[in-house]
């Protein structure tokens, strides 16, 4: 798929401080996220991830600096225009659900965005099937598990077909099954050409779901790039109070004897490098090494 590499979201020298906070939460933060990429904003608790995402959605306005979404300056355009092209899934899903069925939740959102009535039913079916919640459409949201609610919230955010999808802490409260389902959905959305921006401190999940990552530390982006580059930045990860994922951590140790430029992030990639080395006859480190 040919992707347009112009920025979908651009934050330039953004400063922001809550009235109740002593210090600025965002301190001259700059980042440009290209269209069709999936980016995980990683950082410790309180590092400003949610604040950053709320700027992208237009819920917060920068006190200094510029935020552009699909070329629109969020301070210059109305909130509704941003909401049309950005789907947002908050961390706390309790604020989202109120209707008696998931179908109604989706229908109400579609009608808010003035989707033609004759297309609403089909659109709901289509979105629900793509997320894998077709069987939950007639369920009451109050009876669903947190994992099911998370998937339903993604369906709601995608219902009006936004170009940019923003997810705040996607893995919060999810078990292994739903984390895997969510990683698959995020990969699929990026393949479809959408721009996905999510906040997370779950490095293992990030390594499975996203193709780019940014480290947020003390109100600034300290590292931004491909997943392999960022997840191997041991020093910056530690500074951001994050743990290196298992595979990069293990490979960092083995690299001393492998002397390779490869940077595996999944178990499969890791094994194939090992097998290749063993097959080469160069072998791995001897016990005495």
């Amino acid at each position, binding site marked *: 798929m040919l992707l347009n590499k112009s920025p979908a979201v651009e934050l330039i020298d953004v400063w922001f401080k809550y*009235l*109740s906070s002593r210090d600025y939460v965002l301190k001259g933060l700059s980042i440009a996220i290209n269209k069709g990429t999936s980016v995980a904003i990683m950082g410790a608790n309180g590092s400003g991830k949610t604040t950053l995402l709320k700027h992208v*959605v237009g*819920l917060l306005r920068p006190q200094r600096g510029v935020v552009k979404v699909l070329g629109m300056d969020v301070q210059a355009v109305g*909130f*509704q225009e941003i*909401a*049309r092209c*950005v*789907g*947002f899934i*908050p961390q*706390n899903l*309790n*604020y*989202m*659900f*109120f*209707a008696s069925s998931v179908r109604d939740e989706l229908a*109400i*959102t579609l009608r*808010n*965005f003035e989707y033609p009535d004759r297309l609403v039913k089909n659109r709901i079916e289509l979105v629900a099937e793509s997320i894998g919640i077709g069987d939950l459409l007639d369920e009451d949201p109050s009876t669903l598990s947190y994992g099911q609610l998370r998937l339903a919230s993604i369906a*709601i955010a995608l219902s*009006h077909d936004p170009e940019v999808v923003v997810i705040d802490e996607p893995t919060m409260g999810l078990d292994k099954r739903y984390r895997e389902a969510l990683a698959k959905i995020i990969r699929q959305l990026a393949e479809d050409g959408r721009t996905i921006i999510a906040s997370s401190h779950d490095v293992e999940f990030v390594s499975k779901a996203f193709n780019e990552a940014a480290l947020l530390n003390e109100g600034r982006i300290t590292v931004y790039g491909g997943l392999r580059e960022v997840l191997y930045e041991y020093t910056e990860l530690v500074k951001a109070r994050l743990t290196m994922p298992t595979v990069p951590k293990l490979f960092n140790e083995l690299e001393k004897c492998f002397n390779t430029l490869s940077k595996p992030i999944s178990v499969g990639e890791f094994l194939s490098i090992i097998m290749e080395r063993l097959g080469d006859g160069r072998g791995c480190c001897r016990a005495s090494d």
Partner: protein
Amino acid sequence: MAVGVVEQAIRGVYEGFTYRVEEADALLYKVDPRAKLAYMIAALIAISIVDKLWGQAMLLCYLVFLMLTGYHVRKFAEAVKPVALTVLFLATLLAIMYVVVLGEALSRSALHAAFTALRIANVSLLLIATFSTSPPEDIAQALVKLGTPFNQAYLFSLTIRFVPTVARDLLNTYDYFRVRGFRVKWGLNVLEGVRQLSYMLTSITKVLLERVISVAEALETRCFGFRERTFYRELKVCRRDIVFLALNAAVLAKILLINAFLVP
């Protein structure tokens, strides 16, 4: 427009209550909550007695001065801005109502509206000044020392503590609804406006009930009400509190006198 004003008002309550001054740098913070509660009651009586525009304006100036002893100027401006906007909107609305509904002259309507707006502003500032500079635990202790049963005093302080939380819940719900394209428009289609508002109110009620249940559970798991408790810091009335009360009582009395005899 109306929803925007309600949002501003809630934001004002949230910001006014969330901002807490540093104990070390504010006189208002150091005053005993009992003195502040007594002053609050006296000031509320004064606000309701003063029946002239200039009297209310004097009270406003005095309350702003009082708040500035507890707030930094910039913080004060930020905390009070939403309240000011709400009051301005209400004043305009009232003036229009006086002219259109009661058929009064514009100048007279403007005076009536300004008087009511000032009164609302004064009550808002007074509540923010009192409660945002007193930790809820201290208010509970002050009430206990004034003879209120512990459970009721604690419940009252808990209510104060949860004002910003509830305001935050309301704002979050409103924000997340806006993200989903909700717009409460009061145009020709009133029914649609009511429908959109009812969705939001349903969700807000649900969130608030969940909050109440979780607070009740948290209290029960900590054996709340099982036996009397002591407080981490014991409140003591000192000379500063007496001077504060005396000075404020004198100022309020003076404003009442000016209102009664000097202001035309």
